[in-house]
Protein backbone atom coordinates (compact mmCIF):
# COMPACT_ATOMS: atom_id res chain seq x y z
CA UNK A 1 0.00 0.00 0.00
CA UNK A 2 1.05 3.56 -0.68
CA UNK A 3 2.32 5.53 2.33
CA UNK A 4 -0.25 8.29 2.01
CA UNK A 5 -3.08 5.75 1.84
CA UNK A 6 -1.65 3.76 4.73
CA UNK A 7 -1.68 6.89 6.89
CA UNK A 8 -5.29 7.58 5.89
CA UNK A 9 -6.37 4.02 6.71
CA UNK A 10 -4.52 4.11 10.02
CA UNK A 11 -6.23 7.38 10.92
CA UNK A 12 -9.65 5.90 10.25
CA UNK A 13 -8.73 2.88 12.35
CA UNK A 14 -7.62 5.22 15.11
CA UNK A 15 -11.15 6.58 15.19
CA UNK A 16 -10.71 9.64 13.00
CA UNK A 17 -14.00 10.34 11.26
CA UNK A 18 -13.38 13.90 10.12
CA UNK A 19 -10.94 14.93 7.42
CA UNK A 20 -10.60 18.43 5.99
CA UNK A 21 -8.13 19.15 3.25
CA UNK A 22 -7.16 20.78 0.03
CA UNK A 23 -5.26 18.85 -2.65
CA UNK A 24 -1.58 19.33 -3.26
CA UNK A 25 1.06 17.01 -4.70
CA UNK A 26 2.63 14.82 -3.32
CA UNK A 27 -0.04 13.98 -0.75
CA UNK A 28 -3.34 14.16 -2.64
CA UNK A 29 -3.69 10.37 -2.46
CA UNK A 30 -4.26 10.70 1.28
CA UNK A 31 -7.21 13.01 0.69
CA UNK A 32 -8.46 10.80 -2.15
CA UNK A 33 -8.43 7.78 0.15
CA UNK A 34 -10.36 9.70 2.79
CA UNK A 35 -12.86 10.90 0.18
CA UNK A 36 -13.44 7.30 -0.85
CA UNK A 37 -13.47 5.63 2.56
CA UNK A 38 -14.76 8.07 5.18
CA UNK A 39 -18.35 8.37 3.91
CA UNK A 40 -18.56 4.54 3.89
CA UNK A 41 -17.33 4.34 7.46
CA UNK A 42 -19.53 6.89 9.11
CA UNK A 43 -17.25 9.85 8.62
CA UNK A 44 -17.12 13.14 6.81
CA UNK A 45 -14.67 14.16 4.12
CA UNK A 46 -14.61 17.80 3.12
CA UNK A 47 -12.50 19.30 0.40
CA UNK A 48 -12.55 22.90 1.49
CA UNK A 49 -11.66 26.12 -0.31
CA UNK A 50 -8.24 26.55 1.25
CA UNK A 51 -5.73 25.08 3.66
CA UNK A 52 -6.63 27.82 6.15
CA UNK A 53 -10.22 26.60 6.22
CA UNK A 54 -9.06 23.02 6.60
CA UNK A 55 -6.96 23.61 9.70
CA UNK A 56 -9.64 25.79 11.27
CA UNK A 57 -12.20 23.06 10.68
CA UNK A 58 -9.86 20.63 12.44
CA UNK A 59 -9.71 23.16 15.26
CA UNK A 60 -13.49 23.45 15.32
CA UNK A 61 -13.96 19.69 15.33
CA UNK A 62 -11.36 19.26 18.08
CA UNK A 63 -13.25 21.73 20.27
CA UNK A 64 -16.13 19.27 20.36
CA UNK A 65 -13.78 16.42 21.30
CA UNK A 66 -13.79 14.76 17.86
CA UNK A 67 -10.77 13.12 16.26
CA UNK A 68 -9.97 15.21 13.21
CA UNK A 69 -7.18 15.41 10.70
CA UNK A 70 -5.79 17.41 7.83
CA UNK A 71 -2.86 16.89 5.51
CA UNK A 72 -0.93 18.91 3.01
CA UNK A 73 2.53 19.60 1.68
CA UNK A 74 4.95 22.47 2.41
CA UNK A 75 3.13 25.41 0.80
CA UNK A 76 -0.20 24.32 2.26
CA UNK A 77 1.33 23.59 5.68
CA UNK A 78 2.68 27.15 5.72
CA UNK A 79 -0.88 28.40 5.33
CA UNK A 80 -2.01 26.22 8.22
CA UNK A 81 0.49 27.66 10.69
CA UNK A 82 -1.88 30.27 12.11
CA UNK A 83 -4.44 27.59 12.91
CA UNK A 84 -1.83 25.28 14.39
CA UNK A 85 -0.63 28.03 16.72
CA UNK A 86 -4.23 28.64 17.79
CA UNK A 87 -4.69 24.92 18.45
CA UNK A 88 -1.55 24.90 20.57
CA UNK A 89 -2.77 27.98 22.41
CA UNK A 90 -6.22 26.49 22.96
CA UNK A 91 -4.67 23.13 23.87
CA UNK A 92 -6.56 21.20 21.23
CA UNK A 93 -5.66 17.83 19.79
CA UNK A 94 -5.41 17.27 16.06
CA UNK A 95 -3.27 15.44 13.54
CA UNK A 96 -1.56 17.22 10.67
CA UNK A 97 0.38 15.31 8.03
CA UNK A 98 3.06 17.21 6.11
CA UNK A 99 4.34 15.35 3.07
CA UNK A 100 7.33 17.53 2.51
CA UNK A 101 8.32 18.68 -1.00
CA UNK A 102 11.15 20.77 -2.35
CA UNK A 103 11.09 24.44 -1.35
CA UNK A 104 11.16 27.29 -0.55
CA UNK A 105 8.11 28.85 -2.18
CA UNK A 106 6.28 26.69 -4.65
CA UNK A 107 9.56 24.82 -5.10
CA UNK A 108 8.84 21.49 -6.73
CA UNK A 109 7.06 18.24 -5.94
CA UNK A 110 10.15 16.13 -5.33
CA UNK A 111 10.94 14.56 -1.94
CA UNK A 112 12.48 16.82 0.69
CA UNK A 113 12.79 17.07 4.47
CA UNK A 114 13.47 20.79 4.60
CA UNK A 115 10.34 21.58 6.65
CA UNK A 116 12.09 20.36 9.80
CA UNK A 117 12.50 23.85 11.25
CA UNK A 118 8.90 24.72 10.53
CA UNK A 119 7.57 21.52 12.10
CA UNK A 120 9.90 21.30 15.08
CA UNK A 121 10.58 24.91 15.98
CA UNK A 122 7.01 26.07 15.95
CA UNK A 123 6.18 27.32 12.47
CA UNK A 124 3.41 29.51 13.78
CA UNK A 125 3.70 32.30 16.33
CA UNK A 126 4.23 32.04 20.05
CA UNK A 127 5.98 29.74 22.49
CA UNK A 128 4.64 26.38 21.46
CA UNK A 129 5.67 23.00 20.14
CA UNK A 130 4.05 20.43 17.95
CA UNK A 131 4.73 16.82 18.73
CA UNK A 132 6.55 15.81 15.54
CA UNK A 133 6.78 12.22 14.30
CA UNK A 134 9.02 11.16 11.43
CA UNK A 135 8.25 7.76 9.89
CA UNK A 136 10.82 6.08 7.71
CA UNK A 137 8.70 3.29 6.21
CA UNK A 138 5.11 2.83 5.13
CA UNK A 139 4.52 0.48 8.07
CA UNK A 140 5.85 3.06 10.49
CA UNK A 141 3.86 5.85 8.82
CA UNK A 142 0.71 3.83 9.51
CA UNK A 143 1.71 3.04 13.10
CA UNK A 144 2.66 6.61 13.94
CA UNK A 145 -0.47 8.02 12.36
CA UNK A 146 -2.55 5.60 14.45
CA UNK A 147 -0.75 6.63 17.62
CA UNK A 148 -0.72 10.32 16.73
CA UNK A 149 -4.38 10.62 17.70
CA UNK A 150 -3.71 9.19 21.16
CA UNK A 151 -0.72 11.44 21.69
CA UNK A 152 -2.68 14.47 20.52
CA UNK A 153 -5.46 13.75 23.00
CA UNK A 154 -3.21 12.72 25.85
CA UNK A 155 -1.42 16.07 25.72
CA UNK A 156 -4.16 18.11 24.06
CA UNK A 157 -1.64 19.25 21.50
CA UNK A 158 -1.31 19.20 17.73
CA UNK A 159 0.73 16.30 16.39
CA UNK A 160 2.49 16.65 13.07
CA UNK A 161 3.68 13.76 10.96
CA UNK A 162 6.61 14.92 8.87
CA UNK A 163 7.64 12.75 5.98
CA UNK A 164 9.01 13.21 2.51
CA UNK A 165 7.21 12.36 -0.69
CA UNK A 166 9.16 9.09 -0.81
CA UNK A 167 7.30 7.73 2.23
CA UNK A 168 3.94 9.01 0.96
CA UNK A 169 4.33 7.79 -2.62
CA UNK A 170 6.13 4.52 -2.00
CA UNK A 171 4.25 1.24 -1.77
CA UNK A 172 5.34 -1.27 0.88
CA UNK A 173 3.50 -4.06 2.64
CA UNK A 174 1.60 -2.89 5.73
CA UNK A 175 0.07 -4.74 8.63
CA UNK A 176 -2.73 -2.69 10.09
CA UNK A 177 -3.76 -2.22 13.66
CA UNK A 178 -7.24 -3.25 14.82
CA UNK A 179 -9.91 -0.62 14.20
CA UNK A 180 -10.79 1.24 17.33
CA UNK A 181 -14.27 1.99 18.50
CA UNK A 182 -15.01 5.67 18.59
CA UNK A 183 -14.85 6.81 22.16
CA UNK A 184 -18.18 7.16 23.81
CA UNK A 185 -16.77 8.84 26.86
CA UNK A 186 -16.98 12.62 26.86
CA UNK A 187 -13.72 14.51 27.20
CA UNK A 188 -13.77 16.65 30.35
CA UNK A 189 -12.70 19.74 28.42
CA UNK A 190 -14.73 19.40 25.21
CA UNK A 191 -17.53 21.78 24.35
CA UNK A 192 -20.57 19.57 24.05
CA UNK A 193 -23.37 21.82 25.25
CA UNK A 194 -23.46 23.14 28.82
CA UNK A 195 -26.97 22.03 29.67
CA UNK A 196 -26.95 20.76 33.23
CA UNK A 197 -23.29 21.54 33.89
CA UNK A 198 -20.89 24.41 34.25
CA UNK A 199 -19.86 25.95 30.92
CA UNK A 200 -16.36 25.22 29.70
CA UNK A 201 -14.15 27.69 27.91
CA UNK A 202 -11.61 27.01 25.18
CA UNK A 203 -9.66 30.08 24.06
CA UNK A 204 -6.23 31.34 23.17
CA UNK A 205 -6.90 35.02 23.88
CA UNK A 206 -5.64 36.04 27.31
CA UNK A 207 -5.22 39.80 27.52
CA UNK A 208 -3.66 39.97 30.96
CA UNK A 209 0.08 39.24 30.82
CA UNK A 210 -0.10 37.46 34.19
CA UNK A 211 -2.80 35.15 32.96
CA UNK A 212 -1.09 34.49 29.63
CA UNK A 213 2.25 33.90 31.29
CA UNK A 214 0.69 31.39 33.65
CA UNK A 215 -0.91 29.68 30.65
CA UNK A 216 2.47 29.61 28.94
CA UNK A 217 4.05 28.12 32.04
CA UNK A 218 1.52 25.37 31.92
CA UNK A 219 2.24 24.75 28.27
CA UNK A 220 5.96 24.59 29.02
CA UNK A 221 5.34 22.13 31.85
CA UNK A 222 3.40 20.02 29.38
CA UNK A 223 6.27 20.12 26.89
CA UNK A 224 8.66 19.04 29.65
CA UNK A 225 6.41 16.06 30.37
CA UNK A 226 6.36 15.23 26.68
CA UNK A 227 10.15 15.47 26.57
CA UNK A 228 10.43 13.14 29.56
CA UNK A 229 7.98 10.53 28.30
CA UNK A 230 7.66 10.45 24.57
CA UNK A 231 11.15 10.44 23.10
CA UNK A 232 11.57 7.75 20.50
CA UNK A 233 14.49 6.74 18.37
CA UNK A 234 16.02 3.71 16.73
CA UNK A 235 19.65 2.83 16.43
CA UNK A 236 21.84 0.14 14.95
CA UNK A 237 25.48 -0.88 15.22
CA UNK A 238 26.19 1.57 18.02
CA UNK A 239 28.14 -0.98 20.12
CA UNK A 240 31.46 -0.38 18.43
CA UNK A 241 30.68 2.61 16.24
CA UNK A 242 33.22 5.38 15.94
CA UNK A 243 31.23 7.40 13.45
CA UNK A 244 27.48 7.68 13.95
CA UNK A 245 25.23 8.82 11.14
CA UNK A 246 22.17 10.71 12.39
CA UNK A 247 19.23 10.82 10.00
CA UNK A 248 15.44 10.72 10.13
CA UNK A 249 12.68 9.64 7.77
CA UNK A 250 13.70 9.08 4.17
CA UNK A 251 17.31 10.09 4.68
CA UNK A 252 17.53 7.43 7.39
CA UNK A 253 16.45 4.80 4.85
CA UNK A 254 19.20 5.87 2.46
CA UNK A 255 21.69 6.10 5.32
CA UNK A 256 20.72 2.62 6.54
CA UNK A 257 21.78 1.08 3.22
CA UNK A 258 24.98 3.10 3.23
CA UNK A 259 25.81 2.17 6.84
CA UNK A 260 25.30 -1.54 6.16
CA UNK A 261 27.57 -1.35 3.15
CA UNK A 262 30.20 0.62 5.09
CA UNK A 263 30.20 -2.02 7.82
CA UNK A 264 30.64 -4.76 5.24
CA UNK A 265 33.69 -2.87 4.09
CA UNK A 266 34.97 -2.88 7.66
CA UNK A 267 34.19 0.66 8.82
CA UNK A 268 32.89 1.06 12.36
CA UNK A 269 29.79 3.06 11.58
CA UNK A 270 26.45 3.23 13.37
CA UNK A 271 23.09 4.78 12.65
CA UNK A 272 20.94 6.87 14.98
CA UNK A 273 17.42 7.64 13.78
CA UNK A 274 15.19 10.03 15.74
CA UNK A 275 11.55 8.96 15.37
CA UNK A 276 10.23 11.86 17.43
CA UNK A 277 11.72 15.15 16.19
CA UNK A 278 9.96 16.93 19.03
CA UNK A 279 10.68 15.73 21.63
CA UNK A 280 14.20 15.34 20.26
CA UNK A 281 16.30 12.43 21.62
CA UNK A 282 18.73 14.85 23.19
CA UNK A 283 19.88 12.73 26.09
CA UNK A 284 20.53 9.62 24.02
CA UNK A 285 22.72 11.62 21.67
CA UNK A 286 24.53 13.30 24.55
CA UNK A 287 25.29 9.91 26.10
CA UNK A 288 26.46 8.63 22.76
CA UNK A 289 28.78 11.63 22.40
CA UNK A 290 30.77 10.28 25.34
CA UNK A 291 31.93 7.26 23.38
CA UNK A 292 31.98 8.03 19.66
CA UNK A 293 34.44 10.10 17.65
CA UNK A 294 32.14 11.92 15.33
CA UNK A 295 28.58 12.43 14.17
CA UNK A 296 27.58 12.81 10.55
CA UNK A 297 24.12 14.32 10.17
CA UNK A 298 22.56 13.41 6.86
CA UNK A 299 19.50 15.32 5.71
CA UNK A 300 17.38 16.16 2.67
CA UNK A 301 17.90 19.84 3.44
CA UNK A 302 20.64 22.44 3.85
CA UNK A 303 21.06 21.25 7.43
CA UNK A 304 18.28 21.78 9.95
CA UNK A 305 18.21 18.84 12.38
CA UNK A 306 21.98 19.22 12.56
CA UNK A 307 21.40 22.19 14.87
CA UNK A 308 19.54 20.00 17.35
CA UNK A 309 22.27 17.38 17.16
CA UNK A 310 24.85 20.09 17.88
CA UNK A 311 22.81 21.32 20.85
CA UNK A 312 22.47 17.77 22.16
CA UNK A 313 26.14 16.96 21.79
CA UNK A 314 27.11 20.36 23.22
CA UNK A 315 30.58 20.45 21.75
CA UNK A 316 31.71 17.09 23.11
CA UNK A 317 32.56 15.73 19.67
CA UNK A 318 32.58 16.99 16.14
CA UNK A 319 29.26 17.15 14.30
CA UNK A 320 29.57 17.09 10.53
CA UNK A 321 26.83 17.52 7.98
CA UNK A 322 25.99 16.27 4.53
CA UNK A 323 22.74 17.05 2.74
CA UNK A 324 21.10 17.57 -0.62
CA UNK A 325 18.44 20.19 -1.33
CA UNK A 326 15.66 21.09 -3.69
CA UNK A 327 14.10 17.66 -3.92
CA UNK A 328 17.31 15.93 -4.98
CA UNK A 329 17.43 12.50 -3.40
CA UNK A 330 20.96 11.13 -3.06
CA UNK A 331 21.67 7.45 -3.55
CA UNK A 332 23.03 5.16 -0.83
CA UNK A 333 26.33 5.15 -2.79
CA UNK A 334 26.61 8.92 -2.45
CA UNK A 335 25.93 8.69 1.28
CA UNK A 336 28.45 5.85 1.57
CA UNK A 337 31.13 7.97 -0.07
CA UNK A 338 30.56 10.70 2.54
CA UNK A 339 30.74 8.14 5.34
CA UNK A 340 33.98 6.62 4.09
CA UNK A 341 35.51 10.07 3.59
CA UNK A 342 34.84 10.86 7.27
CA UNK A 343 36.05 7.48 8.48
CA UNK A 344 39.34 8.00 6.68
CA UNK A 345 39.74 11.50 8.13
CA UNK A 346 39.84 9.95 11.57
CA UNK A 347 42.60 7.47 10.88
Amino acid at each position, binding site marked *: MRGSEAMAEAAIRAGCRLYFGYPI*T*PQSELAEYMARELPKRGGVFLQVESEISAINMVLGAAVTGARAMTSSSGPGISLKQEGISYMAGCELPGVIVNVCRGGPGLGN*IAPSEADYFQAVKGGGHGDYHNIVLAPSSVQEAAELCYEAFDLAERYRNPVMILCS*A*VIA*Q*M*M*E*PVEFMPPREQEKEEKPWALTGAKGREPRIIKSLRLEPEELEEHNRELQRKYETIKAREVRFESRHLEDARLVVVAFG*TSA*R*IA*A*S*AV*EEAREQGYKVGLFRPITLFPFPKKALRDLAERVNKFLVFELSAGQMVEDVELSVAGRVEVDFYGRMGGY*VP*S*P*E*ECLEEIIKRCKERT
Partner: protein
Amino acid sequence: MYQDLIISGFGGQGVLVIGRLLSYAAMRENKYVTFLPSYGPIMRGGTAHCTVVISSRPIGSPIIQKPLSAILMNVPSVLKFEGKVKHGGLVLYNSDLVDRTMSKRGNMEKVFVPATTIAQKVGSDRVANMVLAGAFIERTKVVSFDSASASILEAVGERHRDFVHLDEEALRRGVEFVRSGMSAGLKKD
Protein backbone atom coordinates in the same frame (compact mmCIF):
# COMPACT_ATOMS: atom_id res chain seq x y z
CA MET B 1 17.93 -12.80 -2.44
CA TYR B 2 18.01 -9.20 -3.58
CA GLN B 3 16.91 -7.53 -6.80
CA ASP B 4 16.25 -3.95 -7.78
CA LEU B 5 15.08 -2.49 -11.04
CA ILE B 6 13.86 0.61 -12.80
CA ILE B 7 10.95 0.27 -15.19
CA SER B 8 10.48 3.12 -17.62
CA GLY B 9 8.43 4.02 -20.67
CA PHE B 10 5.65 6.25 -21.97
CA GLY B 11 2.77 7.03 -19.63
CA GLY B 12 0.01 4.64 -20.67
CA GLN B 13 2.33 1.74 -21.52
CA GLY B 14 1.70 0.19 -18.13
CA VAL B 15 5.08 0.85 -16.62
CA LEU B 16 3.68 1.31 -13.12
CA VAL B 17 1.54 -1.80 -13.58
CA ILE B 18 4.68 -3.92 -14.07
CA GLY B 19 6.05 -2.43 -10.86
CA ARG B 20 2.87 -3.11 -8.96
CA LEU B 21 2.68 -6.65 -10.36
CA LEU B 22 6.18 -7.50 -9.17
CA SER B 23 5.46 -5.87 -5.80
CA TYR B 24 2.24 -7.75 -5.13
CA ALA B 25 3.83 -10.99 -6.31
CA ALA B 26 6.75 -10.42 -3.92
CA MET B 27 4.30 -9.77 -1.08
CA ARG B 28 2.59 -13.05 -1.90
CA GLU B 29 5.93 -14.75 -1.42
CA ASN B 30 6.47 -12.98 1.92
CA LYS B 31 9.40 -11.02 0.59
CA TYR B 32 10.25 -7.46 1.51
CA VAL B 33 9.40 -5.03 -1.25
CA THR B 34 9.37 -1.32 -1.99
CA PHE B 35 7.68 0.25 -5.01
CA LEU B 36 8.40 3.88 -5.72
CA PRO B 37 6.49 5.39 -8.65
CA SER B 38 7.23 8.64 -10.37
CA TYR B 39 4.34 10.91 -9.54
CA GLY B 40 2.86 14.29 -10.30
CA PRO B 41 1.62 15.61 -13.61
CA ILE B 42 2.33 12.56 -15.75
CA MET B 43 0.12 12.15 -18.78
CA ARG B 44 -0.46 9.57 -21.46
CA GLY B 45 2.44 9.97 -23.87
CA GLY B 46 4.72 11.56 -21.31
CA THR B 47 7.41 9.51 -19.59
CA ALA B 48 6.82 7.52 -16.45
CA HIS B 49 9.06 5.29 -14.41
CA CYS B 50 9.14 3.41 -11.15
CA THR B 51 11.67 1.70 -8.93
CA VAL B 52 11.09 -1.70 -7.35
CA VAL B 53 13.28 -3.37 -4.74
CA ILE B 54 12.61 -6.98 -3.71
CA SER B 55 14.59 -8.70 -0.99
CA SER B 56 14.47 -11.51 1.50
CA ARG B 57 15.84 -9.03 4.08
CA PRO B 58 14.50 -5.63 5.21
CA ILE B 59 15.14 -3.01 2.54
CA GLY B 60 17.21 0.08 3.24
CA SER B 61 16.89 2.64 0.52
CA PRO B 62 13.89 2.46 -1.82
CA ILE B 63 15.72 4.93 -4.06
CA ILE B 64 18.12 3.38 -6.51
CA GLN B 65 20.35 5.44 -8.77
CA LYS B 66 22.27 2.50 -10.22
CA PRO B 67 19.91 -0.45 -10.60
CA LEU B 68 20.87 -4.08 -11.09
CA SER B 69 18.32 -4.31 -13.87
CA ALA B 70 15.88 -2.31 -15.95
CA ILE B 71 12.89 -2.72 -18.23
CA LEU B 72 12.97 0.01 -20.86
CA MET B 73 9.95 0.44 -23.07
CA ASN B 74 10.84 3.43 -25.23
CA VAL B 75 13.81 5.39 -26.58
CA PRO B 76 13.76 8.25 -24.03
CA SER B 77 13.95 5.62 -21.28
CA VAL B 78 16.98 4.01 -22.90
CA LEU B 79 18.70 7.39 -23.12
CA LYS B 80 17.88 8.16 -19.51
CA PHE B 81 18.44 4.87 -17.70
CA GLU B 82 20.53 2.47 -19.76
CA GLY B 83 23.77 4.14 -18.70
CA LYS B 84 22.83 3.87 -15.04
CA VAL B 85 22.46 0.09 -14.90
CA LYS B 86 25.27 -1.59 -12.95
CA HIS B 87 28.04 -3.45 -14.76
CA GLY B 88 26.97 -7.02 -15.28
CA GLY B 89 23.35 -5.95 -14.97
CA LEU B 90 20.34 -6.87 -17.06
CA VAL B 91 18.19 -4.76 -19.37
CA LEU B 92 15.01 -5.81 -21.11
CA TYR B 93 13.89 -3.69 -24.06
CA ASN B 94 10.66 -3.50 -25.97
CA SER B 95 12.46 -4.03 -29.26
CA ASP B 96 9.37 -2.99 -31.26
CA LEU B 97 9.89 0.54 -30.01
CA VAL B 98 13.60 0.55 -29.27
CA ASP B 99 15.96 -0.19 -32.13
CA ARG B 100 18.98 -2.28 -31.09
CA THR B 101 21.27 0.42 -32.46
CA MET B 102 19.91 2.83 -29.83
CA SER B 103 21.54 0.75 -27.16
CA LYS B 104 25.09 1.92 -26.50
CA ARG B 105 25.97 -0.03 -23.40
CA GLY B 106 28.28 -2.98 -23.02
CA ASN B 107 29.19 -4.98 -19.91
CA MET B 108 25.69 -6.16 -19.32
CA GLU B 109 23.07 -8.58 -20.52
CA LYS B 110 20.55 -7.23 -23.00
CA VAL B 111 17.31 -8.94 -23.84
CA PHE B 112 15.36 -7.52 -26.78
CA VAL B 113 11.74 -8.56 -26.52
CA PRO B 114 9.35 -7.76 -29.38
CA ALA B 115 6.74 -7.11 -26.72
CA THR B 116 4.25 -5.18 -28.82
CA THR B 117 4.26 -7.82 -31.58
CA ILE B 118 3.76 -10.62 -29.07
CA ALA B 119 1.02 -8.64 -27.33
CA GLN B 120 -0.80 -8.07 -30.60
CA LYS B 121 -0.74 -11.81 -31.19
CA VAL B 122 -2.27 -12.30 -27.77
CA GLY B 123 -5.03 -9.86 -28.68
CA SER B 124 -4.06 -6.32 -27.74
CA ASP B 125 -0.91 -4.23 -27.85
CA ARG B 126 -2.00 -2.85 -24.48
CA VAL B 127 -0.60 -5.94 -22.76
CA ALA B 128 2.96 -5.48 -24.06
CA ASN B 129 3.93 -4.55 -20.50
CA MET B 130 2.91 -8.00 -19.31
CA VAL B 131 5.08 -9.66 -21.97
CA LEU B 132 8.07 -7.80 -20.56
CA ALA B 133 7.05 -8.62 -16.99
CA GLY B 134 6.90 -12.31 -17.93
CA ALA B 135 10.28 -12.14 -19.61
CA PHE B 136 11.75 -10.43 -16.56
CA ILE B 137 10.51 -12.92 -14.00
CA GLU B 138 11.59 -15.84 -16.17
CA ARG B 139 15.07 -14.41 -16.60
CA THR B 140 15.59 -13.32 -12.97
CA LYS B 141 13.27 -15.67 -11.03
CA VAL B 142 12.67 -12.74 -8.70
CA VAL B 143 9.13 -14.04 -8.20
CA SER B 144 7.41 -17.12 -9.53
CA PHE B 145 5.05 -17.11 -12.50
CA ASP B 146 2.23 -18.29 -10.26
CA SER B 147 2.68 -15.42 -7.82
CA ALA B 148 2.82 -12.91 -10.66
CA SER B 149 -0.17 -14.41 -12.40
CA ALA B 150 -2.19 -14.37 -9.16
CA SER B 151 -1.34 -10.68 -8.68
CA ILE B 152 -2.57 -9.37 -12.04
CA LEU B 153 -5.96 -8.10 -10.90
CA GLU B 154 -4.48 -6.25 -7.94
CA ALA B 155 -1.86 -4.73 -10.20
CA VAL B 156 -4.12 -3.55 -12.99
CA GLY B 157 -7.12 -2.58 -10.88
CA GLU B 158 -10.81 -3.47 -11.07
CA ARG B 159 -11.55 -1.26 -14.07
CA HIS B 160 -9.24 -3.33 -16.23
CA ARG B 161 -10.76 -6.61 -15.14
CA ASP B 162 -11.79 -7.39 -18.74
CA PHE B 163 -8.16 -7.51 -19.78
CA VAL B 164 -6.96 -9.85 -17.06
CA HIS B 165 -7.10 -13.01 -19.19
CA LEU B 166 -5.11 -11.23 -21.92
CA ASP B 167 -2.67 -9.99 -19.29
CA GLU B 168 -2.14 -13.52 -18.05
CA GLU B 169 -1.61 -14.89 -21.54
CA ALA B 170 0.85 -12.08 -22.32
CA LEU B 171 2.75 -12.82 -19.12
CA ARG B 172 3.00 -16.47 -20.16
CA ARG B 173 4.22 -15.53 -23.65
CA GLY B 174 6.92 -13.36 -22.09
CA VAL B 175 8.10 -16.34 -20.07
CA GLU B 176 8.08 -18.55 -23.15
CA PHE B 177 9.96 -15.99 -25.21
CA VAL B 178 12.86 -15.99 -22.76
CA ARG B 179 12.78 -19.78 -22.38
CA SER B 180 12.96 -20.43 -26.12
CA GLY B 181 15.51 -17.67 -26.63
CA MET B 182 17.70 -18.92 -23.82
CA SER B 183 17.74 -22.44 -25.18
CA ALA B 184 18.59 -21.06 -28.63
CA GLY B 185 21.35 -18.99 -27.08
CA LEU B 186 20.21 -15.88 -28.92
CA LYS B 187 19.72 -13.49 -26.09
CA LYS B 188 23.21 -12.51 -25.08
CA ASP B 189 24.61 -9.38 -26.70
